[in-house]
């Protein structure tokens, strides 16, 4: 971002008259707006369509396919519908907090995008406390959810809000602890530094660096799902138990804000996982820039492409998980957190420290990453084998065309 700002100021001399702080501020606000309009909003909307289409196909249905080609514009139609709907506030609700809550939830989610990297140099602000900032600012979401749950003056909402708060506060611990091995290996909290410490090839990623980061990867990913209230941790909005949890009483635009935040959060989970464990925007062959001539070297097109591709794959995995697994019970969710994730993530930290010491002494350990990479490859392989077996047993036929 700074490099981009430098570049702009360098090329537009009249900007040099204005104090640099203000120029930076304007550029940042400009990019934040662009981010909101052209990335977050678009992404959240399109993800909602993708999720419904994927869910449809997973459930042997078609999914939305009426508005626009293949139903692609369905999200615009839904968004418009919600914006035109009456913004309903229950008579017994606490009006001020009820109206405020969705914005706090949304602000907490959106502020995270400040440090989400999209490529080498493509980041709103490369804060040196990057990942720590993410953990901090996303805790705003809890307050917003509690606020919405309480102010609705509905017991189901209140229960949902309480569940959500308990869940997010608990899962913040294993998630933070799972990030620590990566920080230990990098020696920095900055997002770009973490990505630079990894390499373009899968075995250079932190996920496969050593057995402890391998476990940390899964703990982080699952814990992030829990923080984002996604299945199997969608306990706060468990529709069969709490009707809709904390957003039961919301309608119209404010309801959309909750879902806007949820779908934006999908991308955040994926992007953070890619940043921390899956090599970020590192590209193998240094297919570096200048692809379009217009762009400066600081804008890494191939890297951005790789980064977004990886993130989208993880978004797909999250959707896939959501439409497969049942929901945990609230005490089991706590149990998983405190009895499984927290001890394991503590062990990971200690293990990583020992590993780092040992690896200095014995470079042989560097080969472990290849073994772990093979282990990682076994997972999709095993799933592929199980699918072939299922197809054989149920005599199903493959049909890959996504457009019906």
């Amino acid at each position, binding site marked *: 971002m700074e490099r981009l700002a430098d570049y702009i100021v360098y090329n537009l001399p009249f900007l040099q008259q204005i104090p640099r702080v203000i120029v930076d501020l304007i550029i940042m606000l400009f990019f934040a707006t662009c981010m909101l309009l052209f990335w977050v909003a678009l992404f959240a909307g399109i993800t909602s369509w993708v999720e419904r289409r994927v869910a449809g196909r997973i459930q*042997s249905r078609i999914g939305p396919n009426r508005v626009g080609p293949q139903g692609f514009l369905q999200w615009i139609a839904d968004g418009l519908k919600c914006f035109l709907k009456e913004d309903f506030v229950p008579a017994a609700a606490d009006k001020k907090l009820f109206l405020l809550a969705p914005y706090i939830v949304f602000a907490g989610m959106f502020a995270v995008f400040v440090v989400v990297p999209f490529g080498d140099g493509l980041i709103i602000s490369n804060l040196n406390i990057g990942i720590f900032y993410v953990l901090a600012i996303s805790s705003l979401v809890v307050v917003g959810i509690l606020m919405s749950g309480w102010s609705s003056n509905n017991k189901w909402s209140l229960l949902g809000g309480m569940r959500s708060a308990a869940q997010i506060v608990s899962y913040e611990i294993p998630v933070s602890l799972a990030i620590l091995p990566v920080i230990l290996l990098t020696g920095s909290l900055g997002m770009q530094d973490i990505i630079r410490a990894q390499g373009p090839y899968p075995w250079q990623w932190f996920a496969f660096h050593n057995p402890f980061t391998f476990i940390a990867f899964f703990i982080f990913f699952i814990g992030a799902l829990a923080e984002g209230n996604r299945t199997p941790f969608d306990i706060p909005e468990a529709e*069969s138990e709490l009707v809709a949890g904390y957003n039961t009483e919301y309608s119209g635009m404010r309801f959309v804000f909750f879902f806007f935040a949820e779908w934006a959060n999908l991308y955040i989970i994926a992007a953070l996982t890619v940043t921390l464990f899956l090599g970020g925007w590192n590209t193998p062959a240094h297919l570096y820039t200048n692809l379009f001539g217009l762009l400066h070297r600081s804008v890494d097109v191939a890297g951005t492409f790789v980064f977004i591709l990886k993130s989208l794959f993880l978004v797909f995995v999250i959707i896939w998980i959501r439409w*497969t697994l049942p929901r945990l019970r609230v005490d089991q969710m706590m149990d998983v957190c405190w009895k499984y994730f927290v001890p394991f993530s503590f062990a990971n930290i200690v293990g990583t420290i020992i590993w780092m010491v040992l690896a200095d002494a014995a470079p042989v350990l560097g080969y472990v990453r290849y073994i772990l990479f093979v282990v990682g490859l076994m997972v999709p392989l095993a799933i592929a084998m199980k699918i072939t077996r299922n197809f054989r047993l149920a005599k199903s036929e493959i049909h890959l065309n996504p457009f019906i």
Partner: protein
Amino acid sequence: MTEFITEEMTLNMGPQHPSTHGVLRFQLTSDGEVIHSVKPDVGYLHRSIEKIAEKVTYHGFMPYTDRVDYVAAMNSNFAWALTVEKLGGYQVPERAEYLRVIAAELNRISSHLIMLGVMAMDIGAVTPFPYFLRERETINDLLEELCGARLTYNYIRIGGVSSDLPDGFRDRALRFLDHFEPIIDEFNRLITYNEIFVNRLANIVIIPREQAIAWALVGPNLRASGVKWDLRKDEPYSIYPQVEFDIPVGKGEVGTVGDCFDRFIVRVDEMRESSKIIRQCLDKMPEGEIQSKLPRQLKPPKGEVYVRSESARGEMGYYLVSNGGLNPERVKIRTGSFSAMAIMEEVSKGIMIADMVALISSLDVIAPEIDR
């Protein structure tokens, strides 16, 4: 340490709640997530079917029995037909008996499919439901070919059935069963033995053998508690004595006998048994009449009779008093869901709200069947 006395919260679960399976209301008092007491409040779907019976003819009541338990309408039809036949001493041709059993068992599978899918959905897995419904859809197609309706069949008539098998029905039914049996294994892989699902159901709301008998649980709910009681075997009617099948009982496979998981798995196993019955019936079915000659307006002799049969939701009993006229004098229907509702208050103390949802769906209650 002092014990904290916390304030109880009164929650209204229903009548409009996603997991009460119809219009059913529970008044919960809970301490946060833990439920202290549950009060079922039934009657929102009362349609006075028993009173209507006094105004219509014996034949004319048959479509109403479809509405008593719309998920397993065929079994409900069957029970009414058995009742009137016993009172009037009417004979049923053998082929009709086979047709009835085929239809009833197909319907039992489709009813269990609904229950299993809904239960998975209540636990939070949405995807099994469309899969289960897809299989149910094939059964509905078969029954539609057979009798012309998909939900309220009105297929079984007093003294027989309304129509014979259509052309090619046997092949289609067998093809479906060949497809369905491996699919049950796939269901098991998808949801039944999923660790989260198992943990949500195992050891939840254990209804021991004695309690189940004492509270008059019936059908799969009773069998899940380890009681081997099935009217198709223990008080056989129709041609059930001539077919071979097992009665699955709860074994406490992953927890204790009589927990929610047993109530789930018993139904999965029952679908296999039903499919076995259908195969045998399709093979053994004799040629012949499908309806015995009975007058258009039935007038069974004066008297009273209580007949029970094994519906998908357990014993379905019809108590019928006749005054020798065109209409029944009094009809009382006893249904499985109703007896399942009675135990709710007893067993649900100290469980969590999420377990409550699992309990309701594991008892497989159908709101219209409770209220009638």
